[in-house]
């Protein structure tokens, strides 16, 4: 029986020769790894040599959909880029919505992998399951919005484009892969990998549809969930459908979830967060934007009417962007943040990394580590929005202090600036930290370290329980007090295994705060024709989590030993004010308990032989344990 909801076709492009081959991963791999970064981890682990330079031609870059992408499953619209992260030297992935993922499947592919490097810029055109590599000279140098418009001019409005901007072309570590003019697969530096291969874009021209096993059954699950949960009175639904993530910004500053002043401040330092939050943002919105068939439609397009940051039409800044360019920089100019967001989207930069790098630079400037002589006269003081916008433009253009010193993120900037800069460097293993504070939700401190992608917030764990961000009816083990660090492991492991399934399926984590958890195995079962239950998807999630971590181990990385968070981020010393005053997080205990619950070595985080074999990963057990 052939599994449904997948296209049974993955393309492998050798950019050195221009040759394209196609493979059907087969029912067993789809059933065991689903798609997205599950299937991606299997392919990279089995085909890419350990120790490869992620920016070398030998390295692989994958763009994959999940089995629920392009189906009636609610929020089934995601794609995921995978590769070895040039920022962290670990497993890397970046998840994104919009319209590109469904289009790639409807163009006939579950995913596309690139190896080699083109001599001249190219793009990959995907039509009717076939990939054609074409010259991209006419597109090189364009920003992401113009790139998409030009491709749609050539291939029609139905064509969907995932591309890099000028930052990726320069092989900047801040580079993201952008689609729909402002949806970003931003993290892990995978836009940098795409640029290193001189791949400007993947253009998917949809023509077919995704066949599922039980269309009526899938529709029935969808309709039942929409009727019962996607309605007024459900807090998560009301939040996302009315505001999107901007709706939590002021509250997150108040509670201490949003880091302030490069993780050193409190709400007392940023007393008017409502200026960059909820109603203030919505007042600039000209129209809502929803990803493919999403009933939440949490995105939007905004306009800044006048002033130095006037923008005719830009994507609405997300919470992460509002905090990174806002509270982190003590910048309460919404217009300036909107401008920075638009610069990042057009130039193809990750807004989290870019905003955090600016906050780092401001702290360096305020401390006298860098001076106007270094910055070319830019006065990088807290809250100086003119300088924040100017330096962000430089980072995008690759010019001036922003381009030459900050243009590859914090870790590189520390090396370029030298003595004294390290104290302001808030990153984990080279990845700038997202806008969620372990002093409020201690579990995310563990996740920053022990997920295969360090310093990330879209990986699940106990913090999602602590943050009230879990789906209804997940049924995970309960942990009563987030500041009692012993005994949280089972809770965190259960939630993270769940999250791997969500991410590998092609679902959106926001939608999965509204959709009741048992609907996910029901979506998979009716779409794929394979029976999944809440119990069996725990095994699938455990397999994916272990394989991603094994990727790191084979690279010589032991997350639990090798990676540390900046002391400040864990409350050492603790904050003196605010809702998280006095909190110092015991990250080591959380990490140890989590590893034990996952069946990984308690001290190093290496998946044990027994765990790997129990998950059917015997080939990995042999690699790691002989």
């Amino acid at each position: 029986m052939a599994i449904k909801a997948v296209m049974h076709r993955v393309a492998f492009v050798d950019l050195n020769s221009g040759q394209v081959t196609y493979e059907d991963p087969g029912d067993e791999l789809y059933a065991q790894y689903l798609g997205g970064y599950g299937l991606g981890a299997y392919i990279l682990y089995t085909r890419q040599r350990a120790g490869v330079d992620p920016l070398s031609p030998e390295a692989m870059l994958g763009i994959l959909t999940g089995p629920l992408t392009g189906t009636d499953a609610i929020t089934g619209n995601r794609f995921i880029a995978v590769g070895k992260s040039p920022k962290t030297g670990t497993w890397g992935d970046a998840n994104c919505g919009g319209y590109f993922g469904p289009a790639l499947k409807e163009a006939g592919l579950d995913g596309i992998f690139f190896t080699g490097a083109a001599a001249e810029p190219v793009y990959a055109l995907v039509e009717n399951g076939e990939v054609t590599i074409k010259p991209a000279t006419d597109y090189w140098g364009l920003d992401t919005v113009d790139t998409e418009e030009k491709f749609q001019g050539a291939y029609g409005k139905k064509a969907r484009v995932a591309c890099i901007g000028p930052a990726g072309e320069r092989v900047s570590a801040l580079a993201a892969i952008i689609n729909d003019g402002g949806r970003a697969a931003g993290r892990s530096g995978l836009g940098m990998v795409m640029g290193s291969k001189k791949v400007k874009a993947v253009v998917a021209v949809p023509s077919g549809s995704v066949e599922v096993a039980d269309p009526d059954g899938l529709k029935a699950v969808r309709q039942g969930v929409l009727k019962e949960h996607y309605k007024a009175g459900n807090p998560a639904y009301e939040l996302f459908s009315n505001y999107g993530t901007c709706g939590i910004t002021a509250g997150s500053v108040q509670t201490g979830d949003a880091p302030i002043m490069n993780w050193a401040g409190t709400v007392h330092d940023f007393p008017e967060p409502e200026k960059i939050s909820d109603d203030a943002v919505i007042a600039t919105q000209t129209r809502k934007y929803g990803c493919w068939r999403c009933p939440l439609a949490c995105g939007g397009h905004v306009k800044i009417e006048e002033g130095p940051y006037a923008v005719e039409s830009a994507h609405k800044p997300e919470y992460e962007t509002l905090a990174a360019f806002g509270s982190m920089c003590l910048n309460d100019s919404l217009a300036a943040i909107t401008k920075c967001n638009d610069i990042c989207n057009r130039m193809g930069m990750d807004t989290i990394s870019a905003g955090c790098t600016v906050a780092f630079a401001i702290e360096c400037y305020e401390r006298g580590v860098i001076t106007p002589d270094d910055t070319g006269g830019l006065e990088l003081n807290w809250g100086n929005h003119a300088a924040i916008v100017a330096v962000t433009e430089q980072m995008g253009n690759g010019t001036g202090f922003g381009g030459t010193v900050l243009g590859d993120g914090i870790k590189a900037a520390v090396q370029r600036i030298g003595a004294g800069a390290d104290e302001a460097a808030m990153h984990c293993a080279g990845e700038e930290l997202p806008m969620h504070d372990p002093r409020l939700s201690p579990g995310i401190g563990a996740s920053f370290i022990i997920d295969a992608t360090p310093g990330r917030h879209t990986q699940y764990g106990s913090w999602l329980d602590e943050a009230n961000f879990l789906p209804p009816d997940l049924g995970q083990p309960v942990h009563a007090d987030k500041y009692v660090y012993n005994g949280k492991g089972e809770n965190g492991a259960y939630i993270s295994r769940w999250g791997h399934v969500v991410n590998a399926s092609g679902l959106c984590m926001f939608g999965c705060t509204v959709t009741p958890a048992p609907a996910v195995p029901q979506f998979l079962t009716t779409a794929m024709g394979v029976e999944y239950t809440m119990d069996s998807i725990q095994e699938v999630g455990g397999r994916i989590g272990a394989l991603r971590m094994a990727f790191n181990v084979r690279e010589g990385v032991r997350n639990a030993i090798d990676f540390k968070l900046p002391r400040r981020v864990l409350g050492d010393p603790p904050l003196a004010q605010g809702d998280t005053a006095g909190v110092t997080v015991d990250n080591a205990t959380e990490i140890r308990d989590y590893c034990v619950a996952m069946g990984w070595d308690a001290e190093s985080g290496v998946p044990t032989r027994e765990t790997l074999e129990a998950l059917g990963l015997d080939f990995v057990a042999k690699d790691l344990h002989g």
Partner: protein
Amino acid sequence: MAVTARVPPYWRKHTDRQADVLVEGSTVGEVLEDLARRFPELRERLFPAPGELAGNLSVFLNQESVVRRGGLQTPVSAGDRVTVILAIAGG
């Protein structure tokens, strides 16, 4: 005494789009009770059971959470601001 209650953004359709509502009370609990009395749509969202604050909410008196200050019994003063936040961290 009169204090300001700040309503979470996603509830403002029930408060005639007001973010800040002038209400009466001498404790945080009384302030929220008055808010629920003025805007009945908020009652179940604030108090799923009588006198019991919804578990997904955080309440701040000016800049500090009331959790460590006496919860709903925390006294308020004229001119204070009580902020209700849906305690979701994400996005």
